[in-house]
Every structure is written in structure tokens, then in C-alpha cells.
């Protein structure tokens, strides 16, 4: 298994385009890590004692996309977080059924579609624009986008080992 993708240069050298290239690349890595598995495998805590699962990662990252794009960049902090009633942030144990898997992926796709529309409305000149997070802390569009790349990357590190434990892929 290759644990790190080889360095691939971004075709567009602009700053926003570079962030989009990496964000998109990490979404596809997670998709690849989940491909071809049964609902039971997707929900399995395959690196115990960690309670992480690939399905939990998909649910968590839908929530991450929703929070940073809709609530922070688009400034809808008044809206509830996705899965607001889940104290585990998406990692709560889920019944491993085809329905729960389909629902998790369709919610992730929905949030990605929203994020892509949000990104289409941005330009390099917007990257230093100030924003607030839900704790009232100052941030900016650039900081949010770099954060998203590293958060996806760290979770893909989890996904690498969760998948390897399932089928040594």
C-alpha cells in the first residue's frame, strides 16, 4: 500500500486553485479508501482500541465541510451544525446497513457540492477576508482552506491504516 501519494504538481499555479487541487485530491483519497467494502467493513473499528471507522470518517468530514464552508466562510453561524445531536462529531456507532452507508455518502456529496459552489464564488483576492469561527475567534478564508487540506490529510492518514487493517490493500 502506498501511504503517501507522490507529489503531483497542481496544473493551475494560482493560490486558490492550488488549495482546491489539494482539497479535491484528499476527498478522492478518502473515496478510494472506502471503495469496494461492505457496510460491515466500512463501520468496523479496524484499528482497535481506536473507535475510528471509515464510515465515521465520511460522516465526520461531511460535518467538517458543512461547518467551514456554510457556517464560517458563508457566515451562517446561526445555523445548527450537521448532526448537532451527536457528541462524537460523526463517529457515533452506526448500524452497518446499505441504507446508513448510502445516507452518509449522499450527505458528504451534498456538502461537497455546496463547498464547490462556495469556492466557485471566491477569487485569490478574497483569501485574506476576515471570518469568525463559532467560538468568536478571528480567522480568514485562506486559513480555513489550508486547515481543511490538513484536516482531510490527517484523517486520510487514519483511513490509510483503517483500510490496510481490513484487507491489506
Amino acid at each position, binding site marked *: 500500500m502506498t501511504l503517501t501519494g507522490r*507529489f503531483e504538481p497542481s496544473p493551475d*499555479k494560482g493560490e486558490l486553485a*492550488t*488549495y482546491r487541487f489539494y482539497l479535491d485530491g484528499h476527498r478522492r483519497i478518502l473515496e478510494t479508501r472506502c471503495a469496494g467494502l461492505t457496510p460491515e467493513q466500512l463501520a468496523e473499528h479496524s484499528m482497535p482500541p481506536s473507535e*475510528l471507522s471509515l464510515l465515521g470518517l465520511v460522516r465526520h468530514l461531511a460535518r467538517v465541510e458543512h461547518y467551514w464552508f456554510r457556517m464560517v466562510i458563508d457566515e451562517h453561524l446561526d445555523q445548527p451544525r450537521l448532526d448537532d445531536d451527536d457528541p462524537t462529531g460523526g463517529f457515533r456507532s452506526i448500524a452497518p446497513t446499505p441504507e446508513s452507508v448510502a445516507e452518509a455518502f449522499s450527505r458528504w456529496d451534498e456538502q461537497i457540492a455546496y463547498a464547490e459552489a462556495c469556492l466557485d464564488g471566491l477569487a485569490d483576492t478574497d483569501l485574506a477576508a476576515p471570518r469568525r469561527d463559532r467560538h468568536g475567534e478571528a480567522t480568514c478564508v485562506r*486559513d480555513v482552506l489550508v486547515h481543511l487540506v490538513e484536516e482531510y490529510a*490527517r484523517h486520510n*492518514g487514519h483511513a*490509510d491504516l483503517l483500510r490496510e487493517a481490513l484487507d491489506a490493500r
Partner: protein
Amino acid sequence: MHTGELATYRDYLDHYRGVIERQCADLTPDQLATRAAQPSTLSLLGLLRHLAMVEQTWFARALLGITDEPRLFRESGDPDEEFNAITGTRDEVDEAFAAWREQITRADAWLETQSDATMAEELAFNRDGRVATKREVLIHLIEEYARHAGHADLLRERIDGRIGL
């Protein structure tokens, strides 16, 4: 939180160097060398050695153009030597930390010479003629550190149960 481009990259790179340092802290050489996710040969010590190599490859070789110094952990010809050739001695751990810190010091000295205005500058990174900007090299380094920190999260939890480092 900084709003400038270079300062943002430095914040995240420093953050992840700190994460790796904490993930490797308070463990014995044996624990650091443990292959906690078998069949993978990954260990925390292997990741530390790998990241020393990554810093050398990108900062020293690609960005500073220093190509005449020996590459770290490349004595045996095994392309995964930094992971595979580990015995777990105190000397080996000390050597890995020293190599990593030495590369970081040199990397930071180079970063001091840069500014937001240099981030779009291009460098040849491969013989095929493709180019990378300094910006994408730095973003790549952040995501590579982050991904390995994800590996280290699960290794550390298996070694002594520590999470959230």
C-alpha cells in the same frame, strides 16, 4: 492566526512538527520502534526518520539546491530503509531526532528569506520538466506531515492509549 500566505504555511508546518514531537514524546526506544500496525512496517521512529528525509528532500535539495550531501537513511539501497532498518536502540532514536532537528533548522533559515511575493516562484522538481511553485511545495509539506500525523495518531493509541496529541 496570521492572514498572510507564507505566515499561514509556517504556522501549520510548525504546528505539525510539534504534533509529531508530542506523538514521539515520553516513549522508550522500544516503544518508538514498535510496528504497532502490522503487517505494515510503520513505527513512530520510522515516521520521524521519514520526515527528516522529507525535510531534506524538499528544503535542502529542491528549494536550496543542495544536492551533494548524502541522503538520509539511504545507505542500504532499500527505498523504505527509514522504516525497515530499525533496531530500536537509544542511539538510533537520538540520531533520528538530531537529523530531524538539523533539517528543520536549515528549513527555517530558508523560510526566513522568503515572503508572500516569492510564493508563486517556480522550481523544476523533476527531470520531466514539470515545475512546482514554492507555494505548492509548502502546502504539500503540510499535507504530508498531517497525513503522517494521522498514521502516528493510531500507532500511539495502540502503544499506550494516548490520543489527542
